[in-house]
C-alpha cells in the first residue's frame, strides 16, 4: 500500500467534489485520487504496488508483442451505449485485436480539466474498469494530469495496450490480394449517429445506440474457425467509417475493391438519420465492427464464424478485392449503377438541400 494513503485526513468527496489543480500536482491529493479512485476501480496487483510502471511477464513461446495506442476526446462524454471510459478501453483493445493479437494489458493516461465533477470521473473510471474486465485486459499503469479550467474538454483519455500475437497470425492492411472476399461483422454507422444525435446542436431524438464493444472475442472466434493464413486483413472501421477503412486497405495492399451496396447492413434509424442530415453511412464512425478480408476458399467459414458470435449476428459478405492499378473502391449501387467510394475529405458535413 502506498504510504501517502495513511496521511489522508478525509476520503475523496465523490459525490460533490471537483477536480482541482492539486490532483495533478504530484502531491498527496494526486496519490489520494490514484488510490481511492483508479487503483480501487481497476483493482490489480500491478496498480496496487504504486510504482512508476508495471513489470509484466514475457509472452508465451513463439508469441510476439503487439502495441497500440488510442486517444479519446469524445463529446458528449456519456452517450447511448457507452461513455468515454468504455470507449477508451474498446478503442485500444480493438486496435490490438485487429492485429490478430490477444489484448492483455492497458496503460491509461488522463488529462482532466479543473472543475470536472469527481462523480462523473468516478462513473467514467468504473465504466472503464467494467469494460476492461469484460474484454479480459488489466489496466496496469497510468498517469493523471490536470489542466486549468477552459483548457480541456472535461476529460481526455489515452490508452496504450499490449497484446500477444500467436505464431502464424499475420494479418495486415497490405496483405489483401485480388479475389479476396470482404466481410463485415454487422450494421454500420451506429456509433457516429448515436453521438451526432446527442450533440447539443442537433435536437434529433432517435433511438440510436453506439455499437462500442470489444472485438477480441470475435477475432478469436475467427481464428478458431479458419487457418490463420486465410485471414489477410482485419480492421475496425472507426473514424472515417467503412469507406475510409476500405480505401486504406486498398492503398496499402495495392488492390481495388468492388462492393455491393445492398449487402452492406445499415440500421433503419441510422439510414433515416443520415438521409435527413445528408450524410453517407459509409463514412460514419463505428466502435464495435470488424472488417475481414479473407481468402475466397474460406469466406463461407469466416461468415459462419462471424454470425455465430453475438457481435456478428448480422455479418455479411459485402464485396471482393480486385486488381486495380488505381486502387479505387467501387460500389455497385442498389439502383444498379456504379460509383466510387473515396476517402473522406475533411469532416463529413451535411449538404444544404
Amino acid at each position, binding site marked *: 500500500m502506498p504510504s501517502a494513503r495513511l496521511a489522508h485526513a478525509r476520503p475523496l468527496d465523490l459525490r460533490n467534489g471537483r477536480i482541482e489543480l492539486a490532483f495533478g500536482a504530484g502531491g498527496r491529493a494526486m496519490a489520494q485520487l490514484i488510490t481511492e479512485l483508479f487503483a480501487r476501480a481497476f483493482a490489480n496487483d500491478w496498480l496496487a504496488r504504486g510504482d512508476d510502471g508495471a513489470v509484466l511477464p514475457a509472452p508465451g513461446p513463439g508469441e510476439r508483442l503487439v502495441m497500440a495506442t488510442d486517444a479519446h476526446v469524445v463529446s458528449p462524454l456519456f452517450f447511448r451505449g457507452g461513455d468515454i471510459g468504455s470507449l477508451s478501453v474498446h478503442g485500444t483493445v480493438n486496435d490490438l485485436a485487429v492485429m490478430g493479437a490477444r489484448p492483455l494489458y492497458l496503460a491509461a493516461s488522463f488529462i482532466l480539466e479543473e472543475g470536472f465533477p469527481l462523480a462523473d470521473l468516478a462513473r467514467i473510471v468504473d465504466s472503464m474498469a467494467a469494460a476492461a474486465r469484460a474484454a479480459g485486459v488489466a489496466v496496469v499503469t497510468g498517469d493523471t494530469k490536470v489542466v486549468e479550467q477552459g483548457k480541456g474538454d472535461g476529460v481526455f483519455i489515452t490508452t496504450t495496450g499490449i497484446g500477444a500475437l500467436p505464431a502464424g497470425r499475420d494479418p495486415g492492411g497490405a496483405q489483401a490480394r485480388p479475389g479476396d472476399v470482404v466481410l463485415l461483422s454487422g450494421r454500420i454507422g451506429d456509433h457516429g449517429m448515436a453521438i451526432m444525435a446527442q450533440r447539443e446542436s442537433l435536437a434529433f431524438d432517435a433511438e440510436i445506440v453506439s455499437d462500442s464493444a470489444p472485438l477480441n472475442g470475435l477475432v478469436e472466434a475467427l481464428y478458431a474457425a479458419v487457418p490463420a493464413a486465410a485471414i489477410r486483413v482485419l480492421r475496425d472501421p472507426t473514424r472515417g467509417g467503412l469507406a475510409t477503412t476500405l480505401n486504406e486497405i486498398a492503398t496499402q495492399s495495392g488492390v481495388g475493391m468492388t462492393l455491393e451496396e445492398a449487402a452492406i447492413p445499415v440500421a433503419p434509424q441510422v439510414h433515416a438519420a443520415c438521409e435527413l442530415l445528408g450524410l453517407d453511412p459509409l463514412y460514419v464512425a463505428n466502435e464495435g465492427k470488424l472488417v475481414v478480408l479473407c481468402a475466397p476458399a474460406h469466406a463461407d467459414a469466416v461468415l459462419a464464424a462471424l454470425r455465430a458470435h453475438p457481435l456478428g449476428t448480422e455479418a455479411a459478405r459485402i464485396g471482393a478485392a480486385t486488381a486495380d492499378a488505381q486502387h479505387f473502391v467501387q460500389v455497385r449501387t*442498389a439502383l*444498379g*449503377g456504379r*460509383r466510387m467510394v473515396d476517402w473522406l475529405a475533411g469532416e463529413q458535413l451535411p449538404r444544404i*438541400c
Partner: protein
Amino acid sequence: MKYVDEFRDGTLAAGLARAIAREVDRGRDYAFMEFCGGHTHAISRYGVADLLPANVRMIHGPGCPVCVLPIGRVDMAIGLALARPEVILCTYGDCLRVPASEGLSLLKAKARGADVRMVYSAADALALAVREPAREVVFFAIGFETTTPPTALVLRQAAAQGLANFSVICNHVLTPPAIAAILGAPEVRRLGSVRIDGFIGPAHVSTLIGSRPYEAFAAQYRKPVVIAGFEPLDVMQAILMLVRQVNDGRAEVENEFTRAVSRDGNAKAQAVVAEVLELRPSFEWRGLGALPDSALRIRSAFAAWDAEAKFGLEDRPVADNRACECGAILRGVKQPVDCKLFATACTPENPMGSCMVSSEGACAAHYNYGRFRDSEALPAQD
C-alpha cells in the same frame, strides 16, 4: 427506409433503363442539363449514367448553392467573423469549406479564432441568438428558393421579438434567372458549340415557385423542361420524358414530381419571402457573372437585422483562380476533366474552385463518385 427506398429500387430502375433504351433514336445524341445540385448528386451517387444509353449525356448545371456563391461574399463573412470577437457566424455545413481569398475558408477562419458554427437550419441560428444574448449572432444565409422562406421567417420572427443581437447576410439567389443566363450564353446560342436539348427542372425549388416560371423558357428557347424529384428513379423517369419530348419535337413543361410540385407553388411561403426580401438589382454569380434581378436582399424595413447594413459590410468582387474552369463547367461548356486543376491542384481536401466543395458540385461529384470512369476510358497500361 419507407417512402425513400421505393424510389431507389433496382428492378424499377432496370425497367426504366429499358424504356429509355427503347425510345432513344440511335441516329442522334441527347444532351440534357440537370440544373440542380441535388440531381447531380443523385445521378453520381447512384450511378445513373451506367443505366443510360451511350448517346444520352447529362450536363451538370449551376444549381449548387455553394458553387455559385462568389468569393467576395465569403470574404465578407470571414472578415466580419475575424474582426469582431463578439460575432458568432453561423451557416450551413457545406458553406464552411468554400475557398475564399488568401487561402481562407470559414473553417480555416475558425482555426484562426473566429467563432464559426454550423447550423442545420435558420431556426437554429435564431435560437442561438436567444441563448447567447451577449453575442452577435450572424446567419450567413445561402441557397436557392428552397432555403429562402426559412430565412425570411427568422427575420420576421427576430423583428417581432425585437431580437437585437441577430442579423443575416442574405445571399439567396433565384433559379429562373440562372436558367435564362445559361440559355442566353453565347456558347449555347451559337449552334454546335454547346447543345442542351432539355432541362431537368429543380425538385425542391419548384415546390416553392411552382412549374409556371419555366413555361416562358420552354416557349422562348424551345427547350423541354421536366421537373423531377431528387431520387434516382425520378431522374430516370424525367430523362425518359425528355427523350419523348425531343423525339416528338415538343418543348413543354412537364411535371414528374407531382407528389410535391403544383403549377403555382407554395403561395404562403412566397408571401413571407415577399414581405421580408426584395430583388437585388444585380448579383454576382460564380461562373455566370453579374446577373440582373437574380438574387434577394433584405427590405429596408428589416434593416436592423440585415448584417450588411448593421456592420457596414462591403461587397468586393474577387476574381477566381485563372486556371479554374468552374465558370465554364457551371455553364455546361466544359467538363471537370477538361480543367487542368482537376484532381491535381484541386481536390476535395484543397478545393481551388467552388465546384469541388460540395458533393453537389460537378467537380466534387465526379471526383468522389465517378473518377474511376476516366481511367476506364484510357487504354489499358501494361
